[in-house]
């Protein structure tokens, strides 16, 4: 089976789902990205990415509670699946592997 890859934004959203745990739903994720990463994201982009990750089997969703703020609409809470965690782990490891390969001697020689 061909290896699947994640895009940068997909990885970010997936990581956020893992971070936020029970609070991982669309509006919260986009807000967290905005505050923690200080970057503008559009809600629709977050949603589409969530659906794509769900299609790939990296996250799954259940309905959560409705609040007055939401006009009585229920939240959809996302959780990372085992496949999702495996994906996050391999991505991180491969980054670290690559980091190790960067020649670092010049940096300390200032």
């Amino acid at each position, binding site marked *: 089976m061909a290896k699947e890859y994640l895009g940068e934004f997909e990885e970010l959203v997936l990581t956020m789902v893992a971070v936020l745990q029970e609070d991982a739903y669309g509006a919260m994720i986009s807000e967290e990205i905005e505050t923690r990463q200080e970057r503008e994201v559009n809600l629709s982009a977050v*949603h589409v990415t969530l659906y794509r990750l769900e299609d790939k089997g990296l996250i799954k969703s259940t309905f959560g509670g409705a609040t007055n703020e*939401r006009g009585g609409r229920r939240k959809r809470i996302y959780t990372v699946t085992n496949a999702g965690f495996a994906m996050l782990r391999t991505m991180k490891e491969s980054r670290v592997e690559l980091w190790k390969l960067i020649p670092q001697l010049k940096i300390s020689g200032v």
Partner: protein
Amino acid sequence: MNEVKIPKWTIKFLRFICPDNLIEEIEGDLFERFNKDLKHFGLSKARQRFVWNSIRYLRPGILFRNKLSLDLNQFFMIANYFKVAYRVMFRNKAFSSINILGLAVGMTGALLLFIWIHAEFSYETFHTDKTRIYKIWNRSTENGQINCWDVTPRILARTLSDEFSSVENSVSFANWGSKQLFTVNNTKLLRTTGAYTDSEFLNVFSFPLLKGDVNSSLTEPTSIVLTESFAKQLFGDKEPFGETLSLGESGYNFEFKVTGILKDLPSNTDFKFDYLIPFKFLESLGENDTNWDNNSVSTYVKIKEGTVIDAFNNLVKDIKKKHSHNAQQSEVFLYPLTKMRLYSRFENGVVAGGRIEIIRMLTILGVCLVLIACINFINLSTARSQRRAKEVGVRKVIGAYRSSIILQFLCESVIITLGAGLIALIITYFTLPLFNMLIQQQLTLNIESLKFWLLIIGLIIIVALLAGSYPALYLSSFRPARILKGQVLISASRNFLRNTLVVLQFGFSIMLIVSAIVIYKQISFVQNREVGYDKYNLIYQPLTGDLEKNYLSYKNDLIQNNLALSITKTSTPITERWSSTTEIQWNGKKPEDKFNFERIYIDEHFSSTASLSIIKGRDMNLSKFPSDSTSVLLNESAVKAMNFDDPIGEVIIDNGTEWHVIGVVKDFILTSPYQEVEPLLLMGSKAKWALQYAHIKLNPENSNKATISKLSDLWLKYNPSFPFEYYFVDIEYQRKFANLEKTLTITTIFTSIAIFIACLGLLGLSTYMIEARLKEIGIRKIFGGTVVNITKLLGISSLKPILFGILIFSPLSWLAMNWWLQSFTYRTELSISIFIIAAVSLLAIALITVSIQTIGAANANPIKSLRNE
């Protein structure tokens, strides 16, 4: 609740674009965001942001989400279908190969035919102005019949250009086939493949010039345009353009300058020439033909853009009447160039068809071949449906729609057809040269053309649908509950359909066999027709160069050396018609008589040379009767046409000259051996210029080979500057059958293909039938059935539909062949024996096919088939 502060249309808009299962979450998240924004930025800004955020949902990931996910599913299933199809194919190698082979052979046949048909339709389509080019035809009324023919006076082209402003160009074109000797340094070539034409010829037709100028290459009287390959033959590797060459014809020699090199003519044109000479050349010699009654050339016009052809035809039609008193019955009309190839047979003034009839037959043949191959596929797939039934049942239980099962079986047929198509393409590629040789065409596979591949893909799709759709519909109709409970699915209607299809297959085969036999019989019948002269040991030679001058010495040498029994001069070879007339006058001619008389000029002793029998009067003999130079011999048909009781001594007038009849010869075949013998006049030697051929009766005591080598020595002695030429009359006569023999070859090829495919199908069906009845055969044997009994039982049930096919389609083929034979005056009779031969041979082939399987099955040890129970 802040919903009221939000524009309603955004909600509607969101609900419209978002899938139903997602809308709740999306709306909720948007509201949550709105409420946060409300605290931070105030109402107007928050509302603005809400609208903007909503609009941002207009993206493919949302819009196509539902549809896309479904397609993706389907795609995965298709991959599965292909996998299953591939496994099924390999599990039943025998059946798959029968299916693929049958389809491949059928498609090869169809492909060859379609390439041919496509080539026929492409004739003359490469001319840039093809829609504006017309050929001039005559239409004249004779004996109440309207005749159409396409040879026109030389003066017509010039007159059309002068008198009508809608004519852009107008050219005469003639290839009379006169022998012309080319001399370039030491190279000497004799050619009959030249044409005379006008300087605008290359403006009208798009034959590309490699060298030279389209407008001026044929303007000088002694200019000549050569095709590339002919120029190479003449000049070798030397640059031919601008060189001079010497061209000799009947004793004269002229210098010509090469003013143009044409690219070799494409194969899809009816123009055939190696070189072009301007008419101006003939005119510079004083041969300015302005006679409106001398129809001797083809005339082509290119009309100006925007000319309405019907209106123009009306203007032009009386041009002959206007200029000639003799042509009051004649009209001319313009006929499109692109229609000349396929639609040029006129009946009573109306287009009645032409080559298109052959094309239609070929199309039917091609379609039938494909159908026969598809029938195999349908029969084998439905016959073996029991084997796939469980699979269908399980798929349905798991949740397959009927449509997806149909799709699955269509996929299978696509795979098989694709394989068959590839094999067909390869076979076509390798057999095309052979096929070209048999049908005498230059067909090519246009591998680089997109159209060709579209044709192939189209053919594959059509075959796949044709062959696959019925089995797919049938297999997908199974009820899962019944199948999985183990009920047997044998239905009488299914067997009936299968048998009907076999009836069709073999019915078509019998029609093809019958037509092949009838064509063969017709050829041999006509070949055995009495020719009327002795065609063996008879040769003719053209009197080229000095041979005419040295004729008497040549003749003496031949007779004295005992090489020839007799020799005579004639105007034409005895196997060809070159001259005919309807203007003969005789005593008692009625004004409405418009018989066409063939003319041959002879000097003397023609009847003894060709062994014609004289039934009245005597042969010409110039030494005894010098006046025989104005005498004429009639054939029996001519006597009948002129209605003479005693023709001897009658005088007939041809173009002002009187000829006296001295004898009558028995009818002999001059033109077509299939038709009545035409009235013929063998006229005396007064027209000395016309006597261009020598007919020589060789001495049969010598071997022909030795005689020919001696003839060649004599030729060298008397006519050294021209290449040695001779033609055996029996071989030339045989050429009259070439067309029909070609038809026979084609019919035989496709008959074999059709029978081969049908038998493949039969083999598959009988294999299946035996497989299904294996236990039955075992039980029969245990109860004492003999091998003969069982073979008979199995054989009869497979041969029954074939017998039906023969019975139903024999009358049809009788009708068809009867219609075909009507086109010949001299024709063989259809007899019942033809049908018996055809039926017996087809049954024999079928029987052999079936018995390969049945005898094996009947001989098998019953223990093997029964031990498992």
